[in-house]
């Protein structure tokens, strides 16, 4: 894939660029602030932009704002947002207007190369990737506790993986069960959460996440 990296720490930016180059991706540009990122994306749209939430000048959420703008202006470019810590608000903002090609990961996940590359691939192919930590917090502290109470522990596990953006096949592999078993769990979950009408991977993920985060 063709990628642009935006992070204000040179050390991390260059490290990440090398890592992705090792894995056979092409890093077309590396930038240190949100303005430069928007310019770089406009000049040569990549498949995915990997964006740090905090960037100069204020180090609050410039990266997230830039990511949302990229999704608006360049629908063909996926964004994977990296954050220093889990912030439900950011995840919710990303989800609000986007139904595909968005991801939100804890920065530390970069160290788990396989997971990181997997998330990147999902965003690159127009799907979603949400950090297990974000999902766990949404699931555990959801305001809609009642329907969640009705889920079995196994269904809850399936729900978490589904909300991270995994396909049924990936969920099945991770939980060591058959794909049809996962599909059964999914239907049970949708029934219990009242989301039966949704279709497609991204849409079902977003439906679940919106439901949990609302």
């Amino acid at each position: 894939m063709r990628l642009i990296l935006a992070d204000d720490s040179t050390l991390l930016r260059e490290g990440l660029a090398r890592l992705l180059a090792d894995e056979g991706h092409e890093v077309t540009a590396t930038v240190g602030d949100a303005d430069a990122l928007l310019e770089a994306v406009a000049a040569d749209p990549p498949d995915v932009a990997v964006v740090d939430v905090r960037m100069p000048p204020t180090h609050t959420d410039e990266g997230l704002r830039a990511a949302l703008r990229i999704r608006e202006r360049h629908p063909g470019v996926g964004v994977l947002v990296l954050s220093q810590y889990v912030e439900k608000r950011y995840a919710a903002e990303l989800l609000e207007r986007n139904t595909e090609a968005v991801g939100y990961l804890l920065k530390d996940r970069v160290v788990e190369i396989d997971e990181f590359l997997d998330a990147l691939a999902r965003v690159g192919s127009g799907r979603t990737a949400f950090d297990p930590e974000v999902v766990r917090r949404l699931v555990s502290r959801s305001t809609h506790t009642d329907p969640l109470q009705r889920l079995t522990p196994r269904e809850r596990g399936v729900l978490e993986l589904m909300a991270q953006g995994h396909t049924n096949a990936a969920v099945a592999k991770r939980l060591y069960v058959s794909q049809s078993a996962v599909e059964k769990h999914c239907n049970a979950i949708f029934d219990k959460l009242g989301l039966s009408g949704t279709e497609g991977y991204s849409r079902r993920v977003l439906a679940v996440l919106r439901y949990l985060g609302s």
Partner: protein
Amino acid sequence: MRKVQARTTRIVSSVLVGVAYAFAELLFTLLTGLCLVPVLGSPRGKRAVLDRARALAVTLAGRQCVRLARSAPELLASAYTPDRALRYVAVRWTAGMLGGLVLGTLLLGALYASSALWMWAVTEIDAPWTVFFSSLGGLFLVFLGVHGLHGVAALDMRLARHHLGPSEQTLLERRIAELASTRAGVLDAVHDERRRIERYLHDGMQQQLVALGMLLARAQRSGDPARSAELVGQAHEVARRTLDELRDVAWRVYPAALDESGLHAALETVAERSVLPVRLRVSLGREPPDTVRTVAYFVVSEAVTNAAKHARATRAEVRVGLRRGVLSVRVKDDGHGGADPEGSGLLGLARRVAALDGRLWVDSPRGGPTVLTAELPCD
């Protein structure tokens, strides 16, 4: 010597003017008293007389405030009631007259003390002993007069402060307001500080550690032993840098050297670590209290950092001295000035200084130089 002379001249002239006013005040008091006699029976008449008297008393008291402003500037800003002014004027003339008496004594003493001189110049002295004793007596009178003069000046001041100065209640209210605002300021400063620490950790340390993790992960995934070794070597380098950074962050959060070796040593470290040359002059005599020295340290460290980062200075000069229970800190740089006292760093400093009842001045005209001065009471 010149200082003493100037002070004496000031006291004498102040008392002299006070004497002149005393006559006006005495006249005013007598007249008010006389006007009150016929209207004693009627409350309305009494009120009318007193209202007029009060208005005049405010004017007269105002004059005294101007006269004493040099030693008691707070009187000029004091909002005293007309009632208090009237009471003050009614008693002030006594101090004024006393001042006249003392000045007279001084003059007489001076005449007697110098009698030997001018008698010797003008005539033959036929009773030398008498003249000698007169001079001695004169000297004694001068001595009494000088003391009396200081006494009268002090009495004048006390009267004015007591009658016209802010009342106990006002002072207390002011102090409470001050404490409430500095307390809020301290809380803000603490929050800012915490935000800063969080920023250090996330934007510095965390990035370094993620980079380190990435290098190691790449080394693990690389099939080529030589490449792995190279990546591990890089990771080692990053780990070392991260440790340096950690030390740096811990130091910025709280310089441990302050507790271990005192303010002077900690300031030396600031000077050593600074990118621009810092000339340090410290004269303490004793170690200031913990809270005070911590604030003094941060004032210097912030000022030096700003000088290097924002003012593009080429050198800085730091002076720290402890005199009469006040720790004074002065940092001067030759940068281009224009520092904003409302900026987050300087505002945080001002709050911390205010919390110790200290004061902070920032003098930073465009084009420089910038001078930061803090005074911190140490009792």
